[in-house]
């Protein structure tokens, strides 16, 4: 596998790989998001207790899952960046961070909007909400740490270390609803065949999760392309690329 991956340590090959992957991710995003939103927001049946307010689940849950998914990918990139010292991995960390921060913010905001009518409060300092808020701060911390250094090599290393340390927050977020008494409910999608969520709501939700994952992938690839170009702007291949187009 190393042999297969090794060429992508070179910036121009990685750039080409991004270009190859981008259309697939983009198409999956557009198709799944349109179908998923129309299905979820317009055609899925209303909940027996929450009526139509529950429909925020089709945005809230995918964004919450992706906020953690994006963080784990960022942490994996950070480990690769620290141990194998691949500059592309460092760029990947910094490409994912703002995307993850946005997704986390979406999860927090949609959660608050749902919490007001359902719980009766915008925000409660329970374990789930607080740990998700810390996740947002971790993303912002990685970003600002990276931009605080003049020397981009040191910046990449510092940001990577923070990203790796923050991984500890992920199991805390996930298990917070089981370990402690929280206002936030437990997971609806747990065991694949005995979901606490009806199939007529589960499938549009799944589709929306796929759409969100592809969306995060698309934006990350676009950002990674930019980061590579910016970092390599004095290299001949970038100049060639710029002159051509």
């Amino acid at each position, binding site marked *: 596998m190393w042999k297969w991956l090794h060429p992508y340590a070179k910036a121009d090959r990685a750039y080409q790989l991004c270009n190859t992957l981008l259309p697939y991710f983009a198409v999956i995003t557009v198709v799944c998001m349109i179908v998923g939103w129309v299905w979820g927001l317009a055609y899925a049946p209303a909940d*027996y*207790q929450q009526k139509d307010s529950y429909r925020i689940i089709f945005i809230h849950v995918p964004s919450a899952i992706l906020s953690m998914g994006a963080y784990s990918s960022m942490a994996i990139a950070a480990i690769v960046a620290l141990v194998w010292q691949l500059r592309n991995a460092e760029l990947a960390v910094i490409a994912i961070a703002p995307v993850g921060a946005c997704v986390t913010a979406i999860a927090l905001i949609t959660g608050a909007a749902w919490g007001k009518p359902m719980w*009766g409060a915008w925000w409660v300092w329970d374990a789930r909400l607080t740990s998700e808020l810390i996740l947002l701060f971790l993303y912002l911390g990685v970003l600002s740490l990276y931009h605080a250094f003049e020397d981009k090599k040191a910046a990449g290393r510092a940001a990577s270390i923070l990203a790796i340390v923050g991984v500890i927050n992920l199991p805390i977020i996930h298990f917070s609803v089981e370990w*402690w008494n929280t*206002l936030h409910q437990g997971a*609806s999608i747990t065991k694949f065949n005995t979901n*606490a969520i009806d199939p007529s709501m589960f499938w549009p939700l799944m589709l929306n999760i796929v759409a969100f994952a592809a969306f995060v992938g698309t934006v990350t690839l676009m950002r990674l392309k930019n980061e590579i170009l910016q970092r390599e702007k004095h290299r001949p291949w970038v100049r060639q690329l710029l002159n051509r187009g």
Partner: protein
Amino acid sequence: MNPRRKKRLLAVTAIVFGVGAVIGLVLYALQENINLFYTPSELIEGKGPNKELPYIGQKLRIGGMVVPGSVVRDETSLEVSFKLIDTGPLVTIRYQGILPDLFREGQGIVAQGLLVEPNVIEAFEVLAKHDEEYMPAEVAEAVKGIKHEKPKYNLGSDY
């Protein structure tokens, strides 16, 4: 793997495990405080290994299920009182204000307020706790026997 990479990998693992252990110990020490609320049995029988009881006048949160048939509303004001249960004893909650949409008998709620008697809480905030079950009304009717009633006012949309 060459020795330098191995060393870096070890260093990274050590950092993660070190910080993990620190956070783990902190959370363990704070275990009791991270819980958002007392349960009715904890309130009556004491909480934690020392069976500590909250004192009268303490500000606390309590979470439990609203006992069906225990909700008493005042005719002329917003005052309402109901009983909460988890597995054993009952706790009475008195509250004045608007209850959240999801408040109903048999529903989990979290109330914040002052303990005025060992088993009575004067709440100033009542939050509904939603469970993880999502289903259409027809399924709920079939599975749980919950009768779904159409709201009397016209919302313009079809429920």
